[in-house]
Every structure is written in C-alpha cells, then in structure tokens.
C-alpha cells in the first residue's frame, strides 16, 4: 500500500465517513461560513480522499479555517459529513510529531485578558496533539 493510500484509509477510519456516498451536490460548500478562506473547499475534501491525494490535504490551510460548526454535517443529504473528513485530516497532521498548528511560544502574543478558558482549551484540542 502506498503511503497516500494508507493515509486515505486512515482518514476514512478516523472519520468513520464513506466518501463514496457523496453525490457531489456541493451543499457543504454552499453552507460553509469559512468557504472563502479555504484553499481546498469542503466538497473537494471528499474527492481528494477518494482520489487519495492526501499530501495536498495535509498541507491545506483549510484544516485551520474549518470552524467545526457542523453546518455541512447537519445539511449533507448523503450523510457524508465533510466536516468529519476535515477533522480527520487535521488529526493526521497534529498526531504526527511537530504537526501542531499552535505552539505554546506564540501564546503570549495571542492572549488578551478577555479570552475565556474555553477558547484556549478548544484551540489546544483542535490544533495540537
């Protein structure tokens, strides 16, 4: 098995999503509030996984723009749940050593006194191992 194929399988396993159920309607991308920030759009995530082009996915900035707002998951008519695929790709990155998107060093400058703990906890969960 090639590395890419293995990673694609990993993404499918972590997400529990079967990308082949997608009918390419684009409702995920139509619903996404971060659409304009993403280089690989939510609906494209699905075909990237099908085509096993994981290299592009793990380097995509979309991973860090997804809000996990579940709009795509709620509305997907095919039960594909692109948001789960995106999170699985993110997991693939942060679970690897050095894959963290957030380092403790940069925290100081990001902090402001109003920030709720919840924000830090959430960001650490999503961005770091």
């Amino acid at each position: 098995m090639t590395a890419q194929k293995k990673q694609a399988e990993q993404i499918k396993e972590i997400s529990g999503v079967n990308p082949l159920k997608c009918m390419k309607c684009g409702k995920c991308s139509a619903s996404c509030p971060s659409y304009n920030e993403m280089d690989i759009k939510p609906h494209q995530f699905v075909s990237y996984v099908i085509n096993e082009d994981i290299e592009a996915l793990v380097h995509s900035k979309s991973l860090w723009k997804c809000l996990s707002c579940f709009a795509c998951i709620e509305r997907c008519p095919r039960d594909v749940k692109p948001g789960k695929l995106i999170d699985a790709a993110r997991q693939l990155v942060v679970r690897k050593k050095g894959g963290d998107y957030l380092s403790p060093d940069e925290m100081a400058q990001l902090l402001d006194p109003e920030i709720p703990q919840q924000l830090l906890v959430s960001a650490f969960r999503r961005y770091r191992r």
Partner: protein
Amino acid sequence: MQRVGVFVCHCGSNIAATVDVKKVAEMALMEPGVVHAEDYQYMCSEAGQARIQEAIREKQLTGIVVCSCSPRMHETTFRTAAQRAGLNPYMVEIANIREHCSWIHKDMEEATKKAVLLMRAAVAKVNLNTPLRPGESRVTKRALVIGGGIAGIQTALDIADAGYEVDIVEKTPSIGGRMSQLDKTFPTLDCSACILTPKMVEANAHERITIYTYSEVEKVTGFVGDFTVDIRKKARSVDMNKCTGCGVCQEKCPSKKTPSEFNRGLSTRSAIYTPFAQAIPNVPVIDREHCIKFQTGKCGVCAKVCQAGAIDYEQKDEIITQKYGAIVVATGFDMIRLDDYDEYAYSQSKDVVTSLELERIMNAAGPTKGHLERLSDGKAPKEIVFIQCVGSRCADNRGKSYCSKICCMYTAKHAMLIRDKYPDVNVTVFYIDVRTPGKNFDEFYRRAVEEYGVNYIKGQVGKVIPQPDGRLLVQGVDLIDNRQILKEADMVVLAAAIEPDPDVRKIATMLTASIDTNNFLTEAHAKLRPVESPTAGIFLSGVCQGPKDIPETVSQAGAAAVKAIGLLAKDKLLTNPCTAHSDELLCNGCSQCANVCPYGAISYEDRQVNDHGIREVRRIAVVNDALCQGCGACTVTCPSGAMDLQGFSNRQILAEVDALCR
C-alpha cells in the same frame, strides 16, 4: 416409487460459470428415484423443453426436477411443457440454482456443493408429490379503479371502451387529481386543464363508468376474479340528483376561511365547495368540520338559497358493496412536507414556495389569478431562484432515497414560462444534475438555457436567508466556477420530492399487495411485469408504482387496463390446487383451523368415517377449495396433525429439510 428426471440448466454462463452443471447431473443419478439426468444450455428454450418432453415420454417419468433459475421466473414454463408431454404439471419441482446459488457465490466448488444440495432437496420433495388438479372459479366482469387522477381516468376509459363495467373510487370531491392542479405541461406546454377536462368529461359520460367521488375503499375480501369491496360514500350533504351545480350556495356560504386544498392552502374556500371550476361531478360537498351549521347548529344559508332543494344536512355515509374481477390501484402522489428543511426558510417566508404552489400561482384560477407575484406583499418579483432536489436523492433520514424524476423538467418549464411572460425577471436554477431522459426532453431544457436565458448553476443551496427588507438572500455554491454565491432573490421555488399518497399503505394492506420501503407498490417483476402486483388480480397505474410524468403515467395506465381486460375477458380462472385438506381419521373437529383461516374457507360437517373398522359419525373440518388460498395457517394450528397442504405437505417439507441437512 417415482421415476424422476433431473434437468440441469446452464443458463448460458449464468449458472455454468460458477456451478459444475455436469457434476450436479451426475450426482442426481445417485438420488433415490432418479432414472434420468441431463444438463443443457438453455432448458427454457424450445429445444430445452423438447428434451424434457422427450425424456418424460421415453423414460416414463412420473416427476421432474429442473435445476435452473427461480421458480418465480420459469415454473409455469416447465409445468406447461411437462403437461404437454402428459405429465401432471404439479409433478414438477424447481431447484433454484441461479438466484440462490450461482449469482451470489463465487467459488465453484462451494457453489456446486450447494447446487447439489438444492437439487437433492427438490428430488426429495418431488418423490412425495402427487398429481394435483386445479379447480375453476368464475370471473366477475367488472373492474374497480382506486384513484381518480389522470392514471385512474385513463385506465377506466380503456377498460370501459373494451366493454367492461368500471367503477372509479376517488377520495376527494372531484376526479382530476394532481394534473388538474397543474397550469401547463411539459414538454409541449399544453394547458393542463385543456387536455385533462375532456378526459374527465368522457369518463363521466361513459355508460360503463360509475364514479364514486368523496368515497373511499373500506374493505376488500375475495381473490382474483372475485373480489368483494365495500366502498364508503362519505356524506356529501348535497343530493347529487337534485343539485344543478349553479354555485349559489358557495357564493352565499358565510364560512369562507378554510384553506383551499386545491390551491395548496394559498387561498381560502367556503365550507360548501367544489374544489375547482371544472370539477366532476359539479356537485359541491359540505366540509362538516368547517360548516357553521354542523358546528353550531345555526346557519343553514345554503339550504335557504338552494333553488333545487339539494342540501341535505341529514345525509349519512353510505356503504356500497360491489363485486369485481380486477382492481387497479391509481392512488398517485403528494409532495413531501418541508418541515425538516428549514434551512430553505420555507416556514419562515411566504415567498419561499414549492413547485406545486408556483403551479397554482401561475394558474389563472389560482390565488393570484395567474399573476406572478410575491405572496408576502403582492409585488412582482424581479429575481427568482429555483432549488432542485429538495428531499430527493437523500441518504439521510430527512428525505427520500430516490430521484423524483419530474422536477428537472417542470423546473425548466417554470423557468421558461416565467421568462416568456415576464422577460425582465431573472431566473436562476441551482441544480445537482439535470436529468432529461425522454422524447424531446433535453431539447426542451436546452431551449430554457439557450433561448430563454435561464441561468443554470451547478451546485446546491445551503441556506436561504430572509433579509430585513423582505428579500431573500440565497447562499449557494457554483461548483464549476468553484465559488460561493450570495444571491438576492424575491422568490425562491423548491422542487420538493414527491411521495406516494399516504393512504396507499392502508389500501395495499387491504389488497394484500406488496409495498416497498418508500411506500411505492411493488410490481410482480421489475422489468417484465411492471403493471401487475404480485397479488393476482391487482394492477398498478401511475405514480403509486414509482415516480413518473404524465406521458409515462398515461401509457402505464393503458398497460394496466390491458392487463385487467385480459383477466376480465376470461369466463373462468383455474384456481391454485395447492389447498389445504383434512384427514378425516385424524381430525377431531376442534375448530381451531377455522379460527385462523383468513378466508373463511373451513367449515365442519358430520360425516360417517371408518376408523380401522369402527364406523361412526364424527365432526370433521372441510375445506372449500374455491376459497382456500393455500397459506397453510391451519396446518400448523391443527393439534392433531390432520390438516395438511397439498403441494407443500408436511412430509414434503420435512424431506427437503432432511435433504438439506444431510
């Protein structure tokens, strides 16, 4: 001892590619009673049947086993062939080694092993078969059509024209169905009413058609050729014979706030009403739930103004019992409810409508007199967005798994009609796929794009966002340009999925007709018997069988009629000889069998029996062969084991079990 012949079919490579057919034939020769075994390319072919007949004659076979496809496919073929060679047709058994073996297994050794087992079971069974003779039953030369839409009307007309009596039962006050609600029809843009009304009139005037509107089927008993049906004629509160259809009562009725079913709730109607101007019969009904007289006892305006004295507040529901030889189901469809699709703001904005509602808005008899306007403020829209596949092709539990089939075409029609009549209105269609497989269909859709400038965008809409100024912001995606779109619109039209009329489940249960998970009626064979239900004597017409447009519905309606006519043309039908019978020496007359028989086919009589020399009169169960349908419920209930089923006897099934577990 039987002399059994075994015939193993290759079915081209369908069976032979996975089952070693020669081996099966070889093994058959080792089974008790088998005196002949052979394999052949296509047993169902002329030549194949000839081989069977030759073997029957030459080897004096008393029973045969054909190892081939499902008995549901070719049992009749092989029975007829055997009969022509002088063998009783019920001495034929089929071992299903295609659907139940070769098609589902890949490993040749495994599949062959299973095929041999299935052959053995069939041989074991045929060894215990006895010749059976079917009885005869009469055919009532009258058909019932359930549903008075275009499907039901067409079926009724075709059957009546062939010379048979037909009754149409329609639950609403008028025949006409969904088609009467449509404004124009694709792909030729005929006015729907203009082509439907003549058919309605013809059905009404036909000497052999009786129409029961505002009526429902309540009970069905009997079987093919001889159904007995109770029809409930709901109290109309208006005497059909006296009413002249002048319409004064509707005008004067003070209760005018009831949402009009015909206009999909977009306008109101009076409590006494005919659903639409061309209604047939042109006799109103009183909707008792909304009638002031019925609710408070005080009113009676309609009775006062009726010159003909047709109003009858005392009228009661009436049950009509009628016998029929054939029943055609034509119960049609409705659109799904959109309660679960609030992202499209259907319940939040009056300007988000379904396609059927738009149909009414575009119609001259509709809530806006045919003017295209926003229902919220009556203003003329400048920008209209259509959203396709709302609730169709869904794998979640909100929508339907199937394609509703008609939406692509009616949306192209709507878009075209709007652009034609209001050239300054921009029309955008968000679609996933445009599906136009029909004569002149794709050309029609292309005209919408090329001649009428309808803007088709490939991509779905995520959310419709009502704006403070009353406009609608449509957030969608263009998958070709790969960009998210925010489009302001004045109206949004949703192509909601269609689903079978909710009452069809009740009707299917009464008819014991099978129904699938989407509530569409199942056909006897998906390809070869598409208008027949697996239940004999029940035929399917229109959308109750699956989504279809008007031309398709009309052709299927005709096909259903032909099948019904073919049945009605017969004077007698051969009955299924696989009926129950009781062994008079074992029966103790306990009545348990009669309690479980769904057909009332079992009665009891005192009969003189000779039980090993002891002569006495005993109470014994007797089965009426004409009524027994052969389900076998009685055989299992019988505590003494006296009741058995011909063709599926205890010994036969036990022999099959033994053979399979050997």
